[in-house]
């Protein structure tokens, strides 16, 4: 299990990386490599050129300012997991990142790599969808912004053109008084989930849900925002019946099925996880509102 030969290119700056991306044929960008290298070792992927973004410091790091959060593409997953400011303004990220692989892979794996790989069960694209994030793609021709909602074009197919480099992910943080929950189901910690759910909730002063965002991962070609579920939450007082109704609604949605995990089981899991996730997010929303 050794990769097919390729030429390695070390990009020292974003400009250099963009130039390489524009000029080298059959090239791939290498960020954390935690999925790409495995696929290359298995010879599922073979390229002529590998452009290493790891030295490009200008696209690594976390900035938080006036409610807007920007994650550089080369920010390591471990950094996201452990960043205290991020945990305060966007606690669901820490909860979700805890499910990403293992310490050894989070030390290398990056935000941008996960978004570019776009595994249907990956947590980071799920978070991007949940937070309504915007992705910046940079090429020699300049920068292009894509809403996460439009970014997945199909199964593991992101909207990235030849020569473009994913450079940042940015989104607005939710108000400090919000509830969050991320959970997923896999038999072992760190595995890709058979299904996962993230929820964000805010409550009005009467304790009714006034804002809700939900994402499902691992159930379709890419992360799914079930707008029907989100809509049915608004104006409602959190209750078990409400969460059950949401779970029942999601369990009817067509989902992916394969030889190892059936569609019926995914639907069932999604319903259970959604119910539990909404319930916990609402509890936390109410706690944070009274904090």
């Amino acid at each position, binding site marked *: 299990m050794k990769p097919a*030969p390729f*030429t390695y290119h070390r990009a020292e700056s974003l400009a250099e990386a963009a130039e390489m991306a524009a000029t080298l044929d059959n090239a791939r960008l290498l960020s954390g*490599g935690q999925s790409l*290298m*495995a696929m290359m*070792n298995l010879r599922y992927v073979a390229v002529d050129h590998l452009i290493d973004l790891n030295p490009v410091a200008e696209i690594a790091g976390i900035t938080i300012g006036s409610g807007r959060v920007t994650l550089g593409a080369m920010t390591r997953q471990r950094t996201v997991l452990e960043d205290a400011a991020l945990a305060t303004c966007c606690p669901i990220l820490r909860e979700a990142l805890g499910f990403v692989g293992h*310490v*050894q892979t989070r030390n290398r794996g990056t935000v941008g790599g996960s978004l570019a790989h776009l595994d249907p069960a990956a947590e980071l694209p799920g978070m991007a969808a949940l937070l309504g994030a915007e992705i910046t793609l940079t090429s020699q021709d300049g920068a292009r912004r894509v809403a996460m909602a439009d970014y997945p074009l199909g199964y593991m197919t992101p909207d990235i053109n030849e020569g473009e480099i994913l450079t940042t992910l940015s989104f607005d943080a939710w108000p400090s008084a919000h509830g969050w929950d991320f959970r997923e189901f896999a038999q072992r910690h760190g595995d890709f989930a058979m299904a996962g759910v993230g929820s964000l909730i805010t409550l009005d002063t009467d304790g009714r849900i006034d804002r809700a965002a939900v994402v499902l991962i691992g159930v379709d070609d890419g992360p799914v925002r079930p707008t029907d579920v989100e809509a049915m939450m608004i104006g409602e007082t959190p209750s078990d019946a409400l969460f059950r109704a949401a779970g029942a609604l999601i369990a009817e949605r067509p989902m992916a099925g394969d030889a190892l995990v059936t569609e019926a089981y995914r639907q069932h899991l999604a319903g259970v996880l959604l119910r539990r996730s909404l319930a916990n997010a609402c509890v936390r929303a109410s706690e944070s509102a009274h904090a």
Partner: protein
Amino acid sequence: MPDALPERRITLTVNGKEHSAVTEDRYSLADFLRHGLGLTGTHLGCEHGVCGACTVLVDGEAVRGCLMLAVQAEGRQVTTIEGLAGDDGTLSPLQAAFMDNHGLQCGFCTPGILTTLTAYLRDNPDADEPELREALSGNICRCTGYDTIVRAALAAADAMRKGATA
């Protein structure tokens, strides 16, 4: 496929010693350590990033040696199992605890587990059993059933808190 196999010279520090050697661009760090430098203590158990046998420390942090290229280690500090004992060969507290607690059987997973735990216990000297089990969840051991590994890690943490060093 390119006509000539791309290769380059890299310089890096492994276990405190500087090495300069030529590697094919496509060699993983683990393959380079094993075949390029003859440091065969780092093992390959899956080469697809799941088993953890290949774990080495790069600039002190645990990474999968099968998922990082040798050329990416240019200028870096790499630590392998061969570099864990003291200069005089004294076992590190972790290695000694593995011997005392029967933390290994065939020893094939052991290099990745020792490197992982070396970094983890440095950062989390007071780790408890559930935390250690999570820290170990990226390393597969087929022989031991993990119990003795966890005991060894707890014993090593205890010894280090009491001041043991390699």
